[in-house]
């Protein structure tokens, strides 16, 4: 058992990655689905096991090919990667289970094996980014996850998915190229690609210019991938036209993983080396975060396509996450990381509820769902409860992270009051856009909704699992909170 335990960081990637070719070879779509779901659940179990050992021991290391670091490639799992691994593998598993009854309507049966292979590759790519401790290896797995996500988004039945995915592809490729240029410059100056070794050797580099430019390229490239305002333009359409369960998966993880790499590089590599880096980072990121929060929420208030509404809300939520990070304090980063976790919970529950709605409603627009709550009580109740978590009502997960964010902003000096005002205003805006949907579904009447039927159990179960998790982690935020705060202290280089 202990021998297996030591291999877990590698297996986290290898299990979904090697399942992908197998899923592609299976001709029967149910079998590929079963294999993909099994591999995803297995990855989830590995993530839980890794989290437990991180809580016990503080971290795990693994040498690929048994070559010593920094010559070979090293994997490293710590509190921050464990937190993200839980989200990625958990969201993938829930979305795949929901996909059993949802995907048949969107993707032809004979193309499904390829789709599930792409899904597993996306999962393997995201896990690969999270477990590696090597700057170039991050790039390789970023490519896998990005290419696979383009395929997943393009699987949508609507032809508008293709222009949306083309935009996503171009922006994503620019982002990855910028990251690669930055890593190239760092390698040029330090001669190493291992992240810990970079941190160690970068202190001896006398010439600042290349590292400064590298910091710029890496930050902008990852900001593109993380959809940080105003580089978010690819996101709304990509989320809107993707198959519903793909939106669940991507909304919960893909931007978050880019944020993870962004925070890693800025706090661990650049902050100790570059002069005034924290100040520049804050000046750069703080206004953008505020704009993201306000603009994203405002657009969501006036959007009547339900998926696009939630996508714009994601732009705003990414703003909360970067706002916490731009405070450059342990409290701020803890709030930021916790919000990554809690927002993933709330958004996947909301998008899962939309996937349930899509069973009966052909066009997910607000005017088509009038009175649907009578026909689909469980679905709409799930939407309402997950919406409460998104707004941040006490007792839900969303409240915990917003509360931490508000306390962190209060500590940040005179600007604090203004920031708190922005958070409160945007939460009220969230009340507006969630309420519009709820009002329409419960108190209006339309013809289309009359023929609606409740979603199948295979869809409702994962949806309600996500909803209940929102409440569970709202009442007992212990594990994510502990992981977030130890990750925050790690990022700021303080001993816990």
């Amino acid at each position, binding site marked *: 058992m202990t021998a297996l335990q030591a291999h877990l960081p590698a297996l986290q990637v290898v299990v979904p990655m090697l399942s992908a070719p197998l899923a592609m070879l299976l001709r029967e779509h149910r079998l590929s689905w079963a294999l993909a779901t099994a591999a995803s659940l297995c990855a989830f179990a590995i993530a839980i096991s890794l989290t437990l050992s991180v809580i016990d021991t503080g971290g795990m290391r693994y040498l*690929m090919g048994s070559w010593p670091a920094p010559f070979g490639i090293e994997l490293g799992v710590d509190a921050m990667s464990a937190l993200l691994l839980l989200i990625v593998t958990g969201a993938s598993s829930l979305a795949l289970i929901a996909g059993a009854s949802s995907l048949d309507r969107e993707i032809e049966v004979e193309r499904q094996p*390829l789709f599930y292979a*792409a899904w597993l*590759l996306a999962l393997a790519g995201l896990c690969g980014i999270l477990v590696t401790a090597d700057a170039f290896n991050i790039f*390789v797995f970023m490519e896998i996850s990005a290419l*696979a996500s383009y395929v997943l988004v393009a699987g949508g039945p609507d032809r508008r998915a293709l222009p949306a995915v083309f935009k996503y592809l171009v922006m994503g490729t620019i982002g990855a190229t910028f990251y690669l240029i930055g890593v190239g410059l760092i390698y040029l100056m330090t*001669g190493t690609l291992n992240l810990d070794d970079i941190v160690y050797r970068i202190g001896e580099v006398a010439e600042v210019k290349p590292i400064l*430019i590298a910091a710029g390229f890496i930050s902008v490239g990852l900001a593109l991938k993380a959809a940080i305002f105003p580089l978010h333009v690819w996101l709304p359409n990509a989320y809107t036209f993707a198959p519903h369960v793909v939106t669940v998966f991507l909304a919960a993880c893909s931007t978050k993983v880019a944020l993870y790499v962004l925070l890693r590089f800025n706090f661990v590599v650049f902050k100790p080396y570059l002069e005034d880096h924290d100040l520049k980072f804050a000046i750069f990121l703080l206004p953008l975060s505020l704009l993201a929060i306000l603009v994203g929420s405002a657009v969501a208030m006036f959007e009547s396509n339900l998926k696009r509404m939630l996508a714009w809300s994601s732009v705003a939520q990414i703003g909360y996450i970067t706002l916490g990070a731009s405070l450059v304090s342990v409290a701020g980063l803890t709030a930021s990381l916790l919000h990554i976790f809690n927002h993933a919970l709330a958004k996947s529950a909301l998008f899962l509820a939309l996937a349930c709605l899509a069973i009966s409603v052909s066009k997910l627009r607000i005017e088509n769902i009038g009175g649907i709550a009578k026909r689909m009580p469980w679905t709409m109740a799930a939407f309402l409860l997950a919406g409460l978590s998104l707004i941040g009502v006490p007792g839900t997960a969303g409240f915990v992270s917003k509360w931490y964010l508000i306390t962190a902003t209060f500590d940040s000096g005179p600007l604090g009051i203004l920031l708190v005002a922005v958070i409160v205003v945007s939460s009220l805006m969230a009340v507006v856009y969630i309420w519009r949907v709820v009002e329409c579904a419960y108190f209006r009447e339309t013809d289309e909704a009359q023929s609606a039927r409740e979603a199948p159990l295979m869809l409702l179960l994962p949806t309600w699992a996500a909803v209940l998790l929102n409440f569970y982690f709202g009442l007992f935020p212990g594990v994510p909170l502990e992981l977030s705060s130890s990750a925050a202290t790690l990022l700021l280089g303080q001993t816990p």
Partner: protein
Amino acid sequence: MTIVFGVFLLTLMLITAIAIVRTQNLFVAVMLSGIFSLLLASNFFLLDAADVALTEAAVGAGISTVLYLSALALSAENERAPYSSHRLIALAVVSVTALLVIYATFDQPRVGDPAAPVHQHVAPWYLEMTRDAIDIPNVVTAVLSSFRGYDTLGEVFVVFTAGIGVLFLLDKPGARHGGTQTVGRVRLRHYLIPRLVGRMLIPFILLFGLYVQFHGEYGPGGGFQAGALIAASIILYALLEGETRALQALPRRLLTLLIASGALLYGGVGVAGMLLGGNFLDYSVLASDPVKGQQLGIILIEAGVGITVTGVLLSVFHAFAARGRF
């Protein structure tokens, strides 16, 4: 002398790049990008990066050009004129990016400086360990397939993902035209001279592909380049004899099997390392003598790379060709 050549090639590349941006004719753009890749490959060669040069020449100048042309056959030859205001913004963004990269080079070590950090830190270890632990002459192959074999596994899966993506998007049921229509579309049957010359070339390209595949430990080469070369020879066969004949020789189902089995072979070698008591991708445990184990591992994973790359490139070609319009 090298520097003169380098500057000359770079200038030509710059001119080609500007020409690609300026031209409205997509066919011209494709041809120019082939030339661009060839110039780039020559540049890599000048910098003593023979492996990279071979890849760039095979993939960039060879296969990509063919794939671009197949895509072009499905669309128009001229691009629609874009909005001019967007062009200016794009130019500004690109210029700022270029200036930043140039600014970063002011403090970088001189090219070929033996005291540069890249030559001081990990490189000496690679040189020494390639001799002691793997015992093959080509250090690049040792780094790619063993020391950083996990990256290469990732790259194989990038190729694999790309293949899945193209198959998933282009092989839509209903999008594929009837078999009778596609027969004879892409072929040069009635052109005697290209056909004769082409047929004579195919066995040599195949042979060279195999040489590159199995000679990777001793000279420049390896699975990626070999895969591209072997795929190129079969694509040439398809162009000469018609796509149907090529599909008869290598049916789609077999290609799918190739794509998956190459990736699985590479991954399987990694898992075998784990089962035999080493870490993932540790080849030393594959044989009783660690050095022999390393060599065995490298041969196996290079074969995996070659199989997947061949399969993906051929599948992508067929996916494009099958959608041909008349």
